[in-house]
Protein backbone atom coordinates (compact mmCIF):
# COMPACT_ATOMS: atom_id res chain seq x y z
CA UNK A 1 0.00 0.00 0.00
CA UNK A 2 1.31 3.43 -0.96
CA UNK A 3 2.08 5.63 2.05
CA UNK A 4 0.34 9.01 2.23
CA UNK A 5 2.14 12.34 1.86
CA UNK A 6 1.80 12.73 5.64
CA UNK A 7 3.65 9.48 6.15
CA UNK A 8 6.41 10.44 3.74
CA UNK A 9 7.01 13.71 5.59
CA UNK A 10 6.75 12.01 8.97
CA UNK A 11 9.31 9.48 7.73
CA UNK A 12 11.67 12.24 6.64
CA UNK A 13 11.23 13.90 10.06
CA UNK A 14 11.80 10.64 11.98
CA UNK A 15 8.37 10.78 13.58
CA UNK A 16 7.36 7.23 12.68
CA UNK A 17 7.54 4.13 14.82
CA UNK A 18 9.53 1.12 13.64
CA UNK A 19 6.52 -0.62 12.11
CA UNK A 20 5.41 2.35 9.99
CA UNK A 21 9.00 3.04 9.05
CA UNK A 22 9.36 -0.43 7.55
CA UNK A 23 6.18 0.07 5.51
CA UNK A 24 7.48 3.38 4.09
CA UNK A 25 10.92 1.94 3.38
CA UNK A 26 9.39 -0.98 1.49
CA UNK A 27 7.50 1.50 -0.63
CA UNK A 28 10.50 3.79 -1.23
CA UNK A 29 12.58 0.84 -2.39
CA UNK A 30 10.39 0.53 -5.47
CA UNK A 31 9.28 4.18 -5.90
CA UNK A 32 12.36 6.23 -6.89
CA UNK A 33 10.44 9.51 -7.25
CA UNK A 34 9.12 9.33 -3.71
CA UNK A 35 12.56 8.22 -2.50
CA UNK A 36 14.06 11.33 -4.13
CA UNK A 37 11.45 13.57 -2.47
CA UNK A 38 12.09 12.09 0.95
CA UNK A 39 15.84 12.43 0.44
CA UNK A 40 15.35 16.07 -0.53
CA UNK A 41 13.30 16.78 2.61
CA UNK A 42 15.98 15.22 4.75
CA UNK A 43 18.64 17.26 3.00
CA UNK A 44 16.60 20.39 3.67
CA UNK A 45 16.48 19.61 7.37
CA UNK A 46 20.21 18.93 7.42
CA UNK A 47 20.92 22.15 5.49
CA UNK A 48 18.81 24.17 7.95
CA UNK A 49 20.79 22.75 10.86
CA UNK A 50 24.10 23.37 9.11
CA UNK A 51 23.12 26.97 8.39
CA UNK A 52 21.51 27.95 11.68
CA UNK A 53 22.86 25.72 14.44
CA UNK A 54 25.93 27.99 14.76
CA UNK A 55 23.52 30.62 16.18
CA UNK A 56 23.19 28.39 19.26
CA UNK A 57 26.88 28.89 20.02
CA UNK A 58 26.89 32.65 19.57
CA UNK A 59 27.06 34.66 22.78
CA UNK A 60 23.60 35.98 23.63
CA UNK A 61 23.59 39.77 23.04
CA UNK A 62 23.44 41.89 26.18
CA UNK A 63 20.10 43.41 25.28
CA UNK A 64 18.54 39.92 25.39
CA UNK A 65 20.48 38.69 28.40
CA UNK A 66 19.39 41.65 30.47
CA UNK A 67 15.66 41.41 29.92
CA UNK A 68 15.04 39.08 32.83
CA UNK A 69 17.63 40.84 35.00
CA UNK A 70 15.97 44.20 34.32
CA UNK A 71 12.70 42.92 35.74
CA UNK A 72 14.44 42.26 39.00
CA UNK A 73 15.89 45.73 39.38
CA UNK A 74 12.43 47.02 40.38
CA UNK A 75 11.92 45.06 43.59
CA UNK A 76 15.53 45.68 44.67
CA UNK A 77 15.06 49.42 44.38
CA UNK A 78 11.76 49.20 46.19
CA UNK A 79 13.34 47.09 48.90
CA UNK A 80 16.07 49.71 49.33
CA UNK A 81 13.31 52.24 49.90
CA UNK A 82 11.69 50.05 52.47
CA UNK A 83 15.04 49.52 54.17
CA UNK A 84 15.38 53.29 54.52
CA UNK A 85 11.89 53.49 55.92
CA UNK A 86 12.74 50.60 58.19
CA UNK A 87 15.71 52.53 59.55
CA UNK A 88 13.54 55.55 60.25
CA UNK A 89 10.98 53.60 62.23
CA UNK A 90 13.39 50.96 63.42
CA UNK A 91 13.32 52.37 66.92
CA UNK A 92 9.71 51.18 67.06
CA UNK A 93 10.75 47.61 66.65
CA UNK A 94 13.55 48.07 69.12
CA UNK A 95 11.19 49.55 71.66
CA UNK A 96 8.79 46.74 71.09
CA UNK A 97 11.48 44.10 71.27
CA UNK A 98 12.72 45.56 74.51
CA UNK A 99 9.23 45.67 75.92
CA UNK A 100 8.15 42.25 74.83
CA UNK A 101 11.21 40.36 73.61
CA UNK A 102 9.76 37.00 74.43
CA UNK A 103 6.51 37.30 72.51
CA UNK A 104 8.05 38.41 69.21
CA UNK A 105 11.08 36.16 69.36
CA UNK A 106 8.92 33.17 70.00
CA UNK A 107 6.64 34.22 67.14
CA UNK A 108 9.50 34.09 64.64
CA UNK A 109 10.75 30.87 66.19
CA UNK A 110 7.36 29.24 65.81
CA UNK A 111 7.16 30.41 62.21
CA UNK A 112 10.61 28.97 61.48
CA UNK A 113 9.67 25.70 63.16
CA UNK A 114 6.46 25.44 61.16
CA UNK A 115 8.46 26.15 58.04
CA UNK A 116 11.04 23.49 58.91
CA UNK A 117 8.34 20.92 59.64
CA UNK A 118 6.09 21.41 56.62
CA UNK A 119 8.22 22.76 53.77
CA UNK A 120 10.14 19.47 53.15
CA UNK A 121 6.84 17.59 52.99
CA UNK A 122 6.48 15.99 49.57
CA UNK A 123 3.04 14.41 49.60
CA UNK A 124 1.15 16.62 52.04
CA UNK A 125 2.78 20.04 52.16
CA UNK A 126 -0.58 21.76 52.55
CA UNK A 127 -4.07 20.90 53.73
CA UNK A 128 -5.83 22.85 50.99
CA UNK A 129 -4.18 23.38 47.61
CA UNK A 130 -3.93 26.54 45.54
CA UNK A 131 -6.54 25.15 43.15
CA UNK A 132 -9.12 25.93 45.85
CA UNK A 133 -7.61 29.26 46.72
CA UNK A 134 -10.88 31.02 47.50
CA UNK A 135 -11.95 28.27 49.85
CA UNK A 136 -8.48 28.19 51.41
CA UNK A 137 -8.41 31.91 52.15
CA UNK A 138 -12.00 32.00 53.43
CA UNK A 139 -11.42 29.02 55.67
CA UNK A 140 -8.17 30.31 57.15
CA UNK A 141 -9.67 33.82 57.59
CA UNK A 142 -12.57 32.36 59.51
CA UNK A 143 -10.40 30.22 61.75
CA UNK A 144 -7.77 32.87 62.42
CA UNK A 145 -10.47 35.46 62.96
CA UNK A 146 -9.25 38.12 60.55
CA UNK A 147 -9.59 38.81 56.86
CA UNK A 148 -6.51 37.17 55.32
CA UNK A 149 -5.14 37.32 51.82
CA UNK A 150 -2.67 35.11 50.01
CA UNK A 151 -0.11 37.41 48.34
CA UNK A 152 0.77 36.75 44.70
CA UNK A 153 4.51 36.12 44.40
CA UNK A 154 4.62 35.11 40.75
CA UNK A 155 6.83 38.05 39.86
CA UNK A 156 9.33 36.81 42.44
CA UNK A 157 9.20 33.35 40.87
CA UNK A 158 7.02 31.70 43.50
CA UNK A 159 3.60 30.14 43.04
CA UNK A 160 1.12 29.46 45.81
CA UNK A 161 1.07 25.77 46.75
CA UNK A 162 -1.73 26.10 49.32
CA UNK A 163 -2.08 26.50 53.03
CA UNK A 164 -2.77 24.89 56.38
CA UNK A 165 -4.04 25.71 59.83
CA UNK A 166 -1.70 25.44 62.82
CA UNK A 167 -2.02 25.93 66.56
CA UNK A 168 -0.28 29.05 67.87
CA UNK A 169 0.14 30.73 71.24
CA UNK A 170 -2.91 32.90 70.81
CA UNK A 171 -5.10 30.56 68.79
CA UNK A 172 -5.19 29.43 65.19
CA UNK A 173 -2.38 30.38 62.84
CA UNK A 174 -2.45 30.27 59.03
CA UNK A 175 0.47 29.08 56.99
CA UNK A 176 0.60 29.80 53.25
CA UNK A 177 3.18 27.88 51.28
CA UNK A 178 4.87 28.98 48.04
CA UNK A 179 7.24 27.19 45.74
CA UNK A 180 9.53 28.25 42.91
CA UNK A 181 10.30 26.31 39.73
CA UNK A 182 13.20 24.53 41.41
CA UNK A 183 11.01 23.38 44.29
CA UNK A 184 12.39 25.88 46.82
CA UNK A 185 9.69 26.77 49.29
CA UNK A 186 8.66 29.82 51.27
CA UNK A 187 6.04 29.98 53.99
CA UNK A 188 4.06 32.94 55.21
CA UNK A 189 2.91 32.46 58.79
CA UNK A 190 0.04 34.70 59.86
CA UNK A 191 -1.23 34.94 63.40
CA UNK A 192 -3.69 37.12 65.23
CA UNK A 193 -1.83 38.67 68.13
CA UNK A 194 -3.07 38.72 71.69
CA UNK A 195 -3.59 42.18 73.12
CA UNK A 196 -2.79 45.35 71.28
CA UNK A 197 0.53 45.53 69.47
CA UNK A 198 2.28 48.37 67.75
CA UNK A 199 3.20 47.97 64.10
CA UNK A 200 6.82 47.14 63.50
CA UNK A 201 9.24 47.31 60.63
CA UNK A 202 10.71 44.12 59.28
CA UNK A 203 12.74 42.26 61.85
CA UNK A 204 15.18 39.60 60.70
CA UNK A 205 15.82 36.41 62.55
CA UNK A 206 17.88 33.37 61.69
CA UNK A 207 16.68 30.06 63.10
CA UNK A 208 19.23 27.45 62.06
CA UNK A 209 19.07 27.34 58.27
CA UNK A 210 15.75 29.14 58.09
CA UNK A 211 15.76 32.90 57.57
CA UNK A 212 12.71 34.75 58.85
CA UNK A 213 11.47 38.29 58.32
CA UNK A 214 8.62 39.15 60.62
CA UNK A 215 6.53 42.18 61.30
CA UNK A 216 3.35 43.30 62.96
CA UNK A 217 0.67 45.03 60.99
CA UNK A 218 -2.49 45.96 62.85
CA UNK A 219 -3.84 42.99 64.73
CA UNK A 220 -1.82 40.47 62.75
CA UNK A 221 1.71 39.22 63.00
CA UNK A 222 3.41 37.99 59.83
CA UNK A 223 6.51 35.90 59.42
CA UNK A 224 7.99 35.01 56.05
CA UNK A 225 10.38 32.06 56.25
CA UNK A 226 12.66 30.39 53.76
CA UNK A 227 16.11 28.95 53.31
CA UNK A 228 17.39 31.75 51.15
CA UNK A 229 19.72 34.73 51.49
CA UNK A 230 18.56 37.59 53.67
CA UNK A 231 18.46 40.13 50.82
CA UNK A 232 16.31 37.87 48.64
CA UNK A 233 13.93 37.16 51.48
CA UNK A 234 13.69 40.89 52.21
CA UNK A 235 12.68 41.54 48.59
CA UNK A 236 9.86 39.08 48.89
CA UNK A 237 8.82 40.29 52.34
CA UNK A 238 8.61 43.78 50.87
CA UNK A 239 6.33 42.53 48.11
CA UNK A 240 4.14 40.73 50.62
CA UNK A 241 3.89 43.82 52.80
CA UNK A 242 3.03 46.04 49.85
CA UNK A 243 0.36 43.69 48.58
CA UNK A 244 -1.28 43.47 51.98
CA UNK A 245 -1.16 47.28 52.31
CA UNK A 246 -2.03 48.49 48.82
Amino acid at each position, binding site marked *: MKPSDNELH*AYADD*HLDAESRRVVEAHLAQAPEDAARVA*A*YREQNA*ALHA*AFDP*VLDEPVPDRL*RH*ISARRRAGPVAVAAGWLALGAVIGWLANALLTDRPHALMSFSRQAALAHAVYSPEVRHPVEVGAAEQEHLVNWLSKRVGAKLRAPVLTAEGYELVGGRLLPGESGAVAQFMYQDSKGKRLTLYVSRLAGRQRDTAFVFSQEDKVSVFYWIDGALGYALSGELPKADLLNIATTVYKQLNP
Partner: protein
Amino acid sequence: MNPERIAEHIPRLRRYARALAGDAHAADDLVQDTVERAINKRHLWRPGSDLRAWLFAIMHNVFVNQLRSRQAHPEDALDEDALPAVAPTDGARLEIRDLQTALALLPPEQREVVLLVGLEQLTYAEASHALGIPIGTVMSRLFRGRERLRLLVTGAPAVPALKIVK
Protein backbone atom coordinates in the same frame (compact mmCIF):
# COMPACT_ATOMS: atom_id res chain seq x y z
CA MET B 1 7.61 30.85 36.85
CA ASN B 2 11.09 32.21 37.17
CA PRO B 3 12.16 34.49 34.26
CA GLU B 4 15.44 32.56 34.18
CA ARG B 5 13.56 29.59 32.81
CA ILE B 6 12.58 31.71 29.82
CA ALA B 7 16.15 32.95 29.48
CA GLU B 8 17.35 29.34 29.09
CA HIS B 9 15.44 29.16 25.80
CA ILE B 10 16.96 32.28 24.27
CA PRO B 11 19.64 30.49 22.17
CA ARG B 12 17.02 28.30 20.48
CA LEU B 13 14.62 31.19 20.02
CA ARG B 14 17.48 33.08 18.35
CA ARG B 15 18.20 30.19 15.99
CA TYR B 16 14.59 29.99 14.87
CA ALA B 17 14.24 33.77 14.62
CA ARG B 18 17.43 34.04 12.51
CA ALA B 19 16.05 31.57 10.00
CA LEU B 20 12.60 33.17 10.09
CA ALA B 21 13.57 36.83 9.89
CA GLY B 22 16.69 36.55 7.73
CA ASP B 23 19.07 39.07 9.27
CA ALA B 24 20.53 38.95 12.74
CA HIS B 25 19.29 42.33 13.90
CA ALA B 26 15.68 41.80 12.91
CA ALA B 27 15.86 38.32 14.43
CA ASP B 28 17.05 39.61 17.80
CA ASP B 29 14.31 42.25 17.74
CA LEU B 30 11.88 39.39 17.33
CA VAL B 31 13.46 37.48 20.21
CA GLN B 32 13.50 40.56 22.43
CA ASP B 33 9.80 41.28 21.86
CA THR B 34 9.01 37.61 22.42
CA VAL B 35 10.94 37.34 25.68
CA GLU B 36 9.53 40.59 27.03
CA ARG B 37 6.02 39.51 26.23
CA ALA B 38 6.62 36.07 27.73
CA ILE B 39 7.92 37.56 30.97
CA ASN B 40 4.97 39.94 31.21
CA LYS B 41 2.53 37.14 30.56
CA ARG B 42 4.27 34.35 32.40
CA HIS B 43 1.32 33.90 34.74
CA LEU B 44 -0.59 32.63 31.67
CA TRP B 45 1.82 29.76 31.12
CA ARG B 46 0.35 26.51 32.45
CA PRO B 47 2.88 24.78 34.71
CA GLY B 48 3.68 21.36 33.35
CA SER B 49 3.07 22.34 29.73
CA ASP B 50 5.90 22.69 27.23
CA LEU B 51 7.52 26.08 27.83
CA ARG B 52 9.37 26.06 24.51
CA ALA B 53 6.18 25.46 22.50
CA TRP B 54 4.56 28.30 24.43
CA LEU B 55 7.46 30.60 23.59
CA PHE B 56 7.21 29.67 19.91
CA ALA B 57 3.49 30.50 20.05
CA ILE B 58 4.32 33.94 21.44
CA MET B 59 7.01 34.45 18.82
CA HIS B 60 4.52 33.53 16.11
CA ASN B 61 2.14 36.25 17.33
CA VAL B 62 4.94 38.81 17.51
CA PHE B 63 6.09 37.82 14.00
CA VAL B 64 2.60 38.09 12.54
CA ASN B 65 2.16 41.52 14.14
CA GLN B 66 5.48 42.65 12.67
CA LEU B 67 4.43 41.47 9.22
CA ARG B 68 1.18 43.38 9.54
CA SER B 69 2.87 46.57 10.59
CA ARG B 70 5.32 46.21 7.71
CA GLN B 71 2.41 45.92 5.31
CA ALA B 72 1.06 49.11 6.84
CA HIS B 73 4.47 50.77 6.30
CA PRO B 74 5.72 49.32 3.02
CA GLU B 75 8.89 51.45 3.02
CA ASP B 76 10.22 49.09 5.72
CA ALA B 77 9.22 45.98 3.84
CA LEU B 78 12.39 45.43 1.88
CA ASP B 79 15.65 45.70 3.65
CA GLU B 80 18.48 45.67 1.15
CA ASP B 81 20.92 44.80 3.92
CA ALA B 82 18.86 41.90 5.18
CA LEU B 83 21.15 39.36 3.57
CA PRO B 84 24.80 39.59 4.53
CA ALA B 85 27.20 40.28 1.71
CA VAL B 86 29.31 37.21 1.07
CA ALA B 87 32.57 36.89 -0.77
CA PRO B 88 31.94 34.69 -3.81
CA THR B 89 34.92 32.50 -2.94
CA ASP B 90 33.41 31.58 0.40
CA GLY B 91 31.63 28.44 -0.66
CA ALA B 92 30.06 27.48 2.63
CA ARG B 93 28.62 30.90 3.29
CA LEU B 94 27.38 31.16 -0.23
CA GLU B 95 25.36 28.04 0.36
CA ILE B 96 23.92 29.50 3.53
CA ARG B 97 23.02 32.60 1.64
CA ASP B 98 21.27 30.55 -1.01
CA LEU B 99 19.29 28.80 1.66
CA GLN B 100 18.44 32.09 3.37
CA THR B 101 17.42 33.59 0.05
CA ALA B 102 15.24 30.61 -0.67
CA LEU B 103 13.67 30.76 2.79
CA ALA B 104 12.98 34.46 2.34
CA LEU B 105 11.10 33.64 -0.85
CA LEU B 106 8.76 31.24 0.91
CA PRO B 107 5.45 32.70 2.06
CA PRO B 108 5.90 33.44 5.79
CA GLU B 109 3.28 30.91 6.87
CA GLN B 110 5.06 28.13 4.99
CA ARG B 111 8.47 29.28 6.25
CA GLU B 112 7.27 29.04 9.85
CA VAL B 113 6.08 25.46 9.46
CA VAL B 114 9.16 24.31 7.52
CA LEU B 115 11.41 25.79 10.22
CA LEU B 116 9.47 24.65 13.28
CA VAL B 117 9.40 21.09 11.95
CA GLY B 118 12.69 20.88 10.06
CA LEU B 119 14.95 23.04 12.23
CA GLU B 120 13.31 23.12 15.64
CA GLN B 121 12.11 19.53 15.36
CA LEU B 122 8.65 20.16 16.74
CA THR B 123 6.14 17.40 16.15
CA TYR B 124 3.27 18.27 13.82
CA ALA B 125 0.97 18.50 16.84
CA GLU B 126 3.34 20.90 18.61
CA ALA B 127 3.61 23.04 15.49
CA SER B 128 -0.18 23.08 15.22
CA HIS B 129 -0.38 24.25 18.82
CA ALA B 130 2.37 26.87 18.47
CA LEU B 131 0.84 28.37 15.32
CA GLY B 132 -2.77 28.02 16.42
CA ILE B 133 -3.78 26.18 13.24
CA PRO B 134 -5.26 22.71 12.64
CA ILE B 135 -2.82 19.90 12.06
CA GLY B 136 -4.14 19.44 8.50
CA THR B 137 -3.12 23.01 7.77
CA VAL B 138 0.32 22.34 9.25
CA MET B 139 0.71 19.40 6.89
CA SER B 140 -0.44 21.23 3.77
CA ARG B 141 1.86 24.19 4.52
CA LEU B 142 4.69 21.77 5.16
CA PHE B 143 4.12 19.99 1.81
CA ARG B 144 3.94 23.20 -0.15
CA GLY B 145 6.81 24.84 1.72
CA ARG B 146 9.15 21.93 1.25
CA GLU B 147 8.33 21.48 -2.40
CA ARG B 148 8.80 25.17 -3.02
CA LEU B 149 12.08 25.23 -1.12
CA ARG B 150 13.26 22.25 -3.12
CA LEU B 151 12.42 24.03 -6.33
CA LEU B 152 14.17 27.22 -5.19
CA VAL B 153 17.33 25.52 -4.00
CA THR B 154 17.85 23.03 -6.80
CA GLY B 155 16.18 24.98 -9.55
CA ALA B 156 14.51 21.74 -10.53
CA PRO B 157 10.79 21.11 -10.41
CA ALA B 158 9.95 19.47 -7.16
CA VAL B 159 7.38 16.93 -8.20
CA PRO B 160 8.03 15.55 -11.67
CA ALA B 161 5.84 18.00 -13.46
CA LEU B 162 3.53 16.46 -16.01
CA LYS B 163 3.18 12.94 -17.02
CA ILE B 164 2.30 12.67 -20.62
CA VAL B 165 -0.68 10.49 -20.99
CA LYS B 166 -0.66 8.71 -24.26
